[in-house]
């Protein structure tokens, strides 16, 4: 693998952002990905459409019974509030998220970490007018015109597309509205604490012990990959990993891959953590081994 090894000084671009709380701890916020943002928006648009259709049908039935003027007014105001208020009213509430964002575990927060103000929410959502409505109206315009105006319409569509695809053009996935409102969208999905591999068994059983040479094979990166393999628990992956470790450490196969890997994980984790306490962190298998002091 030598010629293809990744250079360690070029980390892949991630959606993790440093965010230090007043208590001085870096929370490492995870931003919502463009895909999740788009999905949340489509979900919201769908819900708005459903609400609009249902309300229109309900009002249509009621009109039969007279009082059509009042209902017409209600419909006009309802449609206006739905179009302009759906995002604002949901995001201004304590959750900071529309139903679509809630479903995808997203939340709107102020970039400076302070409370989200009404002004910020209104600013970020008023900008949807040029992000969504403008391209849509140009599309409609193009559909209604003949070929003579097509060039103009395509130009207009491209221009307005700049606003629509703005989130893909910056690292922080900011919409135009996020830029003006000083907000960004972070992931705050509820996660359960995964089981502890280090002590998940209730039945006591004899543990395998490993030589120093066997434990010097790997570093933190490989340990956490092993953790992932153990949590996923797919038999073929377990078998491959176990076979590799046995071959490298020259340990005979005893037929119990899961038990072997769990024990190896514990032993390796304990050793690497002890090294870390002494200030000798071994990031991956290419780093120098943690040597015992004589």
């Amino acid at each position, binding site marked *: 693998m030598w010629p293809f090894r990744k250079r360690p000084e070029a980390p892949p671009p991630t959606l993790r952002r440093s965010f230090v709380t007043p208590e001085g701890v870096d929370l490492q916020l995870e931003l919502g990905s463009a895909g999740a943002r788009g999905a949340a928006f489509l979900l919201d648009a769908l819900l708005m459409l459903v609400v609009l259709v249902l309300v229109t049908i309900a009002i249509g039935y009621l009109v039969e019974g007279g009082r059509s003027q009042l209902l017409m007014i209600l419909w006009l105001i309802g449609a206006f509030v739905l179009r302009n208020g759906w995002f604002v009213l949901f995001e201004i509430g304590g959750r900071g998220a529309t139903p679509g964002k809630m479903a995808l575990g997203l939340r709107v927060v102020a970039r400076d970490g302070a409370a989200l103000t009404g*002004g910020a929410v209104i*600013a970020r959502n008023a900008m949807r007018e040029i992000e969504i409505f403008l391209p849509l109206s140009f599309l409609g315009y193009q559909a209604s015109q003949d070929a003579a105006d097509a060039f103009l319409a395509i130009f207009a569509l491209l221009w307005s597309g700049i606003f629509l695809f703005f989130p893909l053009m910056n690292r922080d996935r900011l919409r135009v509205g996020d830029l003006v409102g000083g907000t960004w969208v972070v992931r705050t999905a509820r996660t359960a604490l995964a089981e502890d591999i280090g002590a998940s068994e209730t039945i006591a059983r004899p543990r395998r012990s490993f030589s120093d040479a066997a434990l010097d094979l790997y570093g933190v990166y490989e340990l956490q990959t092993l953790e992932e393999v153990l949590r996923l628990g797919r038999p073929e992956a377990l078998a491959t990993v176990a076979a590799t470790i046995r071959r490298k450490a020259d340990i005979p196969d005893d037929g119990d891959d899961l038990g072997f890997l769990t024990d190896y994980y514990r032993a390796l*984790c304990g050793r690497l953590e002890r090294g870390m306490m002494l200030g000798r962190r071994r990031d991956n298998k290419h780093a120098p081994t943690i040597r015992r002091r004589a």
Partner: protein
Amino acid sequence: MSTSPEPLLVNASRFRAAHAVDWQRLDGIVTRIERRGIGALTENDLLMLPLLYRSALSSLSVARETSLDRALITYLEGLCTRAYFQIYGVPTSFWRQLGDFFARGWPQAVFGLWRETLVAFLLTVAGALAGFLLVLHDPTIFYTIIPDSLAHGRDPSASAASLRSTLYDDGGKDWLATFATALFTHNAQIAIFAFALGFAFAIPTVLLIVYNGLMLGAFLAVFAGKGLAFQAGGWLFIHGTTEMFAIILSGAAGFRIGTAIAFPGRAARTDFAFAVGRQAAVVMAGTVVMLILAGLLEGIGRQTVKVDLTRYAIGAAMLAGWLTYFYAPRQRHVAVS
């Protein structure tokens, strides 16, 4: 130290055993706030929330330094983030924000935009003058300025009598309120659009404002040509002072954003954009309130009040009211952001 039958080799296991109860309790409290709001908490939970949050934060710091259990660190990061935003990131209540908006936020934001407002006003006046003079000079220009759907027969070819009737016709009293609502929603949408277009370096907003003035001038020219200038003025003035003011303000809000992005000065472009963006958004939200009033005045007030002087008086009173509300000297609270 540990009750398990064999000694725990891994730091994370010892750490989990000692603190998991606290984390789960914090998780429970935060989940309850997320689902049902802060009111769903008992007094005891409320008192424990900041303590549990700080202990979870310190757990996170310790785990990062001593543990290699990635699932544990991911869980604590997620938990602390959710708790942080429930503690520091929650907005004040909706009604309180609304009260603040009318008492201080809105007039202060409008006051802060006085330069842009003046520019938008002058652009409107220039547009109106141009439209007026152009149509007086050559009535056919009217048709290029104003689309048929807006003119409703009020064009240079109409007779003085039919023009006069449009000024005092009540258009069927039954539909007054519906008419008012339709006017409001249409105008409010345009105000929001003018604000949002400001982002494109304010150029589309300038065009929108000038065009608005141009239409005003062209309409007035048609009526003036038939000697109905005074009456048409009253017809426009009753709601126009509020409506035009609102459109000028939303244009000013758009200018503010556009100029902030084009010329951020010493501040970073993104930092400056949102500082002014929030202020401009407050102004824009206010224009929606003004347009509700303008819609009522236009849809109901104008159709019921038929005396020119009364129409002028109502329009002038509204204008005086807005000017006092926005620009009268008052005690300015520093603490409002």
